[in-house]
């Protein structure tokens, strides 16, 4: 077997990029409003922020979400919107959901949310709906330069 050469080393370094371990990725979707209008979004989920009492939360999960938000804000080209795929909270507590929304407010762009079972099971989703609206919805994502659909 031959030694790894410089080019191969750099290529492998790049390949790791595609297999990043954070819950963060950029997806190009091939069916926008018209066939020529692809769009992209960044996906974050499963923060499982855990309330310990008072203003204290488990640090690990907080740091993970803060970091995901910071990294998502660096994506270039910019995604058309952000998608939060559920489980802001660990125990479904209102403190956890509010704490997560405060961190997610730093995302630069529109964010669309899905309710996770951890967000749901303490109060059957009541607080989540109060903060974010109905749990079943559709939306139109519009780039700032694109005219609104008629």
């Amino acid at each position, binding site marked *: *077997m*031959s*030694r*790894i050469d*410089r080019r*191969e*080393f*750099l290529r492998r*370094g*790049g390949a*790791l*990029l595609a297999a*990043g*371990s*954070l819950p*963060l990725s950029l997806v190009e979707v091939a069916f926008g409003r018209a066939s020529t209008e692809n769009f992209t979004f960044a996906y974050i989920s499963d923060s499982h922020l855990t309330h310990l009492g008072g203003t204290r939360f488990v*640090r*690990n999960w907080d*740091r*993970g979400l*803060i*970091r995901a*938000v*910071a*990294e998502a*804000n*660096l*994506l*270039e080209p910019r995604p058309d919107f952000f998608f939060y795929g559920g489980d802001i909270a660990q125990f479904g507590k209102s403190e956890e959901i509010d704490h997560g929304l405060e961190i997610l407010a730093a995302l630069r762009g529109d964010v669309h949310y899905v309710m996770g079972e951890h967000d749901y099971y303490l109060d059957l989703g009541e607080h989540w709906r109060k903060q974010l609206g109905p749990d079943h919805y559709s939306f139109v994502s519009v780039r700032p330069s694109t005219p609104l659909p008629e």
Partner: protein
Amino acid sequence: MIKSLSLAIVLTGVAVRLHAAPLGLPPVPVPDDNPQTPAKIALGDKLFHDKRISADGKVSCSTCHEKSMGFTDHKRVSEGFKKLTGTRNAPTVINSAYMKTLFLDGREPDLEGQSTQPPVNPVEGGLPNHNAELKIIRADPDYVKAFKAVFGVDGKHITMTEVSRAIASFERTVVAGDSAFDRYYFAGEKNAMDAGQVRGLKVFLEQGRCVSCHRIEQTQALFMDHRFHNIGIGFKRIRGKEGDTAAAFLASKHGGANVDHTVLSNENMSEVGRFAVTENLTQVGAFKTSTLRNIELTQPYMHDGSLKTLEDVIDFYNNGGRLKDTDPVSPFMSGGIRPLDLSDQQKQDLVAFLKALTSPSMAELANKKGGTTP
């Protein structure tokens, strides 16, 4: 215990041959295409210390990797020709033979590749290109003779391949274990470490969480994990400008700029860390875990040389990757970095333990010049 002195293994596609090592270290991996020979090591030693291989004839590898200073330079950041300064603290050469990537951002895969960069970096050796480096070497009859004997090449056919292989071979001999910790932990000498150092080891393994990255294995300890982490150092410099800095770096790199030159010449861009190599957003501000062996001899500390003492380093970690516990936390910081709540006694013990990682051979080299070892 591994008894074979030349056990061939295959690691990530690289055929390497292993050689025996001091207590506490694994066998030294040596690439198949660059076997160690005494003559090659001597040639590499000479090249390593040769100040002529620089733009002003005053800078050698040993300028920043001085053996009496734990193979560092005791400067915050390294000083090259014309006293030009870079952006990073010189990492030690000691035990670099075990590293899976070289430079603090891992931008070179091996010692051979690493050794080719500093002589032609504009703030280090300052030579315009490798031809200028080869011209200096080819003009010296002693080198011509040595390269012929070691590699079988004539003067005008000496290339950077031979030069880098000789330097790497020498560096693979700069290996040091046999510390008080090694005797305590691997040889069962219960009195090798004093009571404070033994308590410090416990902090290192438990509440201090140090061992998560500065690894100790069952039969050996390199005190590194070959990985890259953002621990909060350098955050202040590019705070709030991470995105702009990363984007400016990429524009420069994709425009053809040399990464080695950029990261050592531009203080802000230096702080993007491993991202400079992989362009992976999860590695903004991440730097390679340094070994802790002989750490007592290699102050100041951290990739930017910003912390002067081991006590400063422990305080930094104890505050969760901050100088003061009221400082903001970098959003890009590794989740493993968190406030440790260590007592003053635990912090003292941890520093005492770090001083148990000094190898007698390196302490001796340092003492010869009034070094810092006890």
